[in-house]
């Protein structure tokens, strides 16, 4: 039993780290740009598919993890500069509809290029196999994933708290108009924010590929989870998104032990509990 519980905790932690990465990306975009990014899920899917193709072409998994999020950033830049930028003044209705349309388009392009059938991406030989931890034997890749995602979250934290651009992003979430008044070129800030969000989504997608495999609908499936992360965290809270992501992952791991059929429902149960007992979200103000 301890074996089962421990391994599910680790599984949940891995999932949670992925959710945290995607959720932080969405939070950044929601907070700074003030748009509902419905294309976030497909950016995640694109990250996974790019990683699959790069790994297949070059034969190097590490190279794929490095390059595919950068390609997703390019897609994100394209989306922001060609479409979203024209819509900052418009209602949320139109922003939502535009990004929803982009999600549909990218989703269909994925099916056209890679086909409707799912794939699996194998981790490199150095990361495949399992590691004996004494009390349990656990797949190496998942352990590395947890460590790497944790490392990325720390990097992100340092970026947001210690660099100038990070300070501008945080200021943008607090008060966008003030940032404009201080003479900062918001267009570039918005572009970078969207890029950073896309990078995190793409990275999470690429990292998730060896665990969960690739299916064309993966983008549509992850999107509601990202939004639940945002709701639990409180709108615009980055530490909240990290905590909420890990919390959801862990609760999914726990649900796998006792109610294996309810692993998806438990996410929404967490959300329901949050809005009943703390309507502003875990880290939300007001």
């Amino acid at each position, binding site marked *: 039993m301890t074996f089962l519980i421990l391994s599910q905790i680790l599984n949940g932690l891995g999932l949670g780290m992925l959710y945290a990465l995607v959720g932080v990306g969405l939070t950044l975009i929601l907070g700074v740009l*003030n748009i*509902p990014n419905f294309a976030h899920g497909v950016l995640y899917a694109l990250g996974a598919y790019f990683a699959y193709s790069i790994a297949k072409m070059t034969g190097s998994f590490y190279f794929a993890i490095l390059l595919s999020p950068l390609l997703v950033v390019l897609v994100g830049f394209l989306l922001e500069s060609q479409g979203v930028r024209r819509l900052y003044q418009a209602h949320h209705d139109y922003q939502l*509809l*535009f990004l929803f*349309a982009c999600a549909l388009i990218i989703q269909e392009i994925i099916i*056209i290029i890679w086909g409707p059938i799912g794939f699996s991406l194998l981790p490199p030989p150095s990361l495949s196999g399992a590691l004996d931890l004494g009390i349990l034997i656990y797949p190496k890749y998942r352990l590395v994933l947890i460590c790497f995602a944790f490392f990325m979250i720390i990097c992100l934290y340092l970026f947001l708290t210690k660099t100038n651009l990070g300070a501008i992003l945080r200021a943008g979430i607090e008060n966008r108009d003030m940032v404009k008044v201080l003479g900062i070129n918001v267009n570039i800030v918005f572009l970078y924010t969207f890029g950073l969000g896309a990078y995190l989504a793409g990275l999470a997608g690429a990292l998730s590929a060896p665990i969960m495999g690739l299916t064309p609908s993966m983008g549509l499936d992850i999107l*509601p989870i990202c939004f639940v992360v945002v709701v639990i965290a409180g709108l615009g809270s980055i530490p909240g998104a990290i905590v909420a992501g890990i919390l959801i992952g862990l609760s999914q791991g726990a649900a796998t032990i006792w109610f294996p059929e309810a692993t*998806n*429902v438990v996410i929404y149960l967490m959300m329901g509990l949050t*809005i009943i007992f703390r309507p502003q979200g875990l880290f939300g103000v007001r």
Partner: protein
Amino acid sequence: MNKYTITCLIIFIFLGPFLFPNATITEMLIFGIVAISTNIMLGYTGMLSFGQALFFGTSAYISGLILLAGFPIFLAIPIATLGSFLISLFVGYFCVKREGLYFICLTFAFNQMFYFIAYVWTEVTGGEDGLVGITRPEFIDTQLSFYVFISILFLTSLYLMYKIITSPLGLIFKLIRENPSRAEAIGYNVRFFKLVSFSIASTFTGLAGSLYVLIHSMVPIDQIHWLKSGDIIFMTLFGGVGNFLGPLIGVVGYIWLSDTFSIIWARWPLIMGVIFAIIVLYFRGGVSELLENLIKKCQFYFKKNKDEKYIKN
């Protein structure tokens, strides 16, 4: 609504069955109810809910289950509508506390919550296969009688919604859209009226959902998936939110386009996505505004001609 729009509507109701196949035209009327009711919330009150499929799907499941249990349709439709009203009160209570992006996130997440409940609860809802084996009652078994039945319900709900919009309540909704803090200052409880608007929209959506069961004699699980909510929002905005009947044009256009493209190419959502994006970027008012501008231009043109003639004489 002036007499021209009423005439157009009646012509549409009578001509519809000759233009489209029976299943398509009834689907158009049913989604017409959905889109027009969504417009009460979206266009008139200014609340963007991304969870309307929740009410559509849940009500379809309730009505399907009642029909499967052998009860008559006159029991199934009111109970399903009442059910979606109660759910809308519950969901709305939590959602209207928040506005803007948070409201969108919440309604969206609630939508997926109900989707997964339907997905997991296979004994009742049939899970991924959907709820199947529902039979249409005998009196609406033929295509004609079914169409008449649906169009009577369509016109009745249209009339009711029009009454709501033109009543003082409708004015309060518009006030909340234009200036919520002023509405608060005058003494209206903004949250309460938002909840009212949310429940009205969701109840009519639920009514439409309970009718949807009858078209294909089944409830597919897509009807409660969040993609359906996106479709509903799109239909409404495609038609144009500035107009009472605008969303109906959007519904007809959307269903006609998707039916046409889905025959031609399996990847038809791509084309729909491109159309969505073009509309958002270039024709933000939707089809109805486009038509209005066209009519205005024509009027202007004819008037100019008349004036020129007048001057010549």
